């Protein structure tokens, strides 16, 4: 895992001190809310429906046991005893007091954490494949590249006031688990003729105008990564619209100019940066890679314990993935138990998980953009004991990748921008489909729920997407079908008129019935949808 340098420590400490002073000035009246708002946002502090909300950065989703324990402490000491893991692999605290935030930030700094780049119109926390470095099909570990980008982007003077927020994701695998094609920039590590570099995608995104990113570079050399990113950001900074918040993201620019033109402009800018001040040398790259060496090197013949317990076997089947080093496994901890708010973890769960990660996973834990947690390095023979401990915590739900493993934004229960609630919808789904046998029969299926068109719940890329609307004061839910955030990314199509809260589950049931009746052997929902087309589903749903 990455460890702060003295420089990193200094930066975070200074920022904490600076914010403490800004809060004092706000409370004394030396700063108006208008003046203070951009400053608090630069430190991850929002004002939501009920209270302030602090979003803490978890760079590329990687946490140590010590950091997780600190998050548990903060949840208890300054919040209501829980935290919410987000789709940018961060964590949110929903109830901090403004007066306490400087103390929270200074406690976070003690464990090399902060809330920088979690909000505002800057380059946000870079996200990453949650199986980075541990899956066998990977070209190269993307985490060091995320860290290189983080170092370059944090407090970048030119890119701290972009037209809008800017999100970058990196994957090192053919199989995209980081949703790179719905990011402002998506980077995919590829190998061509024996050399490793990047494919570069730009202009993906969700919100009210969803787009799949366009590829503008087939192969970017590693040494050029930062110069090329600088070129993209410079073009965007110059040409991105600042006059209309709804048209300010790079996706609008890319879509207006077209793939060829944006590529041409970026290439020109890249040429201009010919001094190549940001060119990376191999030593620098190696230094960063050294932080990310796996804690296990040796293969073993460690075997998965055999037990007759049905729940244990379901969990093994659903939530345990092969590690690239033989004898080890990767464990997905579902934060979607039946009836619970997706992505939430209590302080006691976090505290125990911190111990568990220390006992079983070399003190490493990861957050996925699908709002689950990962224990990356588990010796196979420990799996039963680990499962037993997770079960005691209510964290052994075997639903990874299944219908109840929903992504869900906070919606109207927390968010001032929402048009409808989303968490209660997710709760209904997870209660309704809670039986493992039912879920297993349906197979791989991603439901994603947003409480408004801003799409923080990624509904556009849900196989079944659910968007909460306000219809004359009543909550109503629009369904989209066929979305995907994988390497074959696609934006879901609206199936038809929206559904009331009561009619939503029956509508999902009807959609699943169409799938069930028409699927070919072993065909998953998305493939069946792509083959059958929306009209078939529409016809069945509204007849």
């Amino acid at each position, binding site marked *: 895992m990455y460890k702060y340098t003295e420089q990193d420590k200094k930066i975070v400490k200074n920022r904490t001190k600076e914010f403490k002073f800004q809060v004092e000035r706000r*409370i004394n009246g030396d700063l108006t809310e208008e003046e203070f708002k951009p400053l608090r946002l630069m430190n991850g502090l929002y004002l939501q429906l009920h209270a302030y909300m602090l979003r803490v950065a978890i760079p590329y989703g990687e946490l140590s046991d010590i950091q997780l324990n600190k998050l548990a402490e903060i949840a208890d000491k300054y919040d209501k005893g829980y935290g919410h893991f987000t789709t940018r692999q961060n964590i949110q605290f929903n109830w901090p*007091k403004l007066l306490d935030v400087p103390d929270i930030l200074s406690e976070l700094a003690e464990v090399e954490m902060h809330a920088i780049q979690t909000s505002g119109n800057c380059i946000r926390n870079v996200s990453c494949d949650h199986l980075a470095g541990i899956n066998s099909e990977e070209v190269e570990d993307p985490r060091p590249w995320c860290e290189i980008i983080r170092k370059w982007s944090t407090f970048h003077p030119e890119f701290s006031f972009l037209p809008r927020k800017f999100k970058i994701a990196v994957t090192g695998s053919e199989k995209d688990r980081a949703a790179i094609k719905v990011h402002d920039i998506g980077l995919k590590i590829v190998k061509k003729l024996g050399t490793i570099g990047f494919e570069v995608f730009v202009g993906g995104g969700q919100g009210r105008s969803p787009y799949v990113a366009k590829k503008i570079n087939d192969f970017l050399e590693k040494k050029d990564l930062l110069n090329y990113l600088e070129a993209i950001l410079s073009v965007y900074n110059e040409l991105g619209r600042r006059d209309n918040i709804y048209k300010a993201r790079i996706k609008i620019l890319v879509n207006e100019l077209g793939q060829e033109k944006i590529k041409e402009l970026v290439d020109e800018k890249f040429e201009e940066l010919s001094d190549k001040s940001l060119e990376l040398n191999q030593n620098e790259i190696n230094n960063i890679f050294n932080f990310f060496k796996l804690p296990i090197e040796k293969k073993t013949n460690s075997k998965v314990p055999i037990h007759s317990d049905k729940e244990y076997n379901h969990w093994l089947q659903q939530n345990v993935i092969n590690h690239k080093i033989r004898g080890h496994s990767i464990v997905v901890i579902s934060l979607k138990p039946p009836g619970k708010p997706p992505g939430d973890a209590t302080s006691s769960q976090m505290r125990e998980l911190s111990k568990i990660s220390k006992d079983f996973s070399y003190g490493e834990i990861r957050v996925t953009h699908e709002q689950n947690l990962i224990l990356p390095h588990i010796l196979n023979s420990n799996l039963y004991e680990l499962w037993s401990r997770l079960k005691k915590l209510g964290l052994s739900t075997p639903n990874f990748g299944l219908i109840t493993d929903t992504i869900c934004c906070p919606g109207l229960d927390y968010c001032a921008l929402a048009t409808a609630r989303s968490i209660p919808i997710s709760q209904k789904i997870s209660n309704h489909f809670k039986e493992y046998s039912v879920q297993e029969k349906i197979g791989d299926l991603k439901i994603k729920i947003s409480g408004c068109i801003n799409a923080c719940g990624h509904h556009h890329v849900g196989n079944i997407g659910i968007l909460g609307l306000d219809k004359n004061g009543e909550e109503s839910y629009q369904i989209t079908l066929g979305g995907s955030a994988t390497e074959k990314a696609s934006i879901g199509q609206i199936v038809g008129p929206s559904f009331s809260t009561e009619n939503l589950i029956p509508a999902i049931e009807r959609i699943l019935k169409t799938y069930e009746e028409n699927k070919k052997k072993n065909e998953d929902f998305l493939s069946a949808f792509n083959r059958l087309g929306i009209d078939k589903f529409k016809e069945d749903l509204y007849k």
Partner: protein
Amino acid sequence: MAKKLKGEYFYLTANDLKTGSVVYYSKNNWSSDLTNAVKISRDNLAIYEQIAQNHEKECLIVSPFFVELDEGGEIRKMRDKIREKGITFKLNN
């Protein structure tokens, strides 16, 4: 603040600056309890808007706005109802 409001009666609400808690204006002070909130008629909106502005300047509150009430005197919008009653599901802990 008072633009485009529906109905005849309103509450004045805001967040407490230091804590962020939801508060309602109730005769000279701000309270998290709705029971004593002042019911404001449309004619008096300007007066209460001024009070809100003053209290913002005094750093007591942030983000003030008027909550619309329906004919029965109940909060009209779901958003405002949730804001008053709190989240609509049980917390995990």
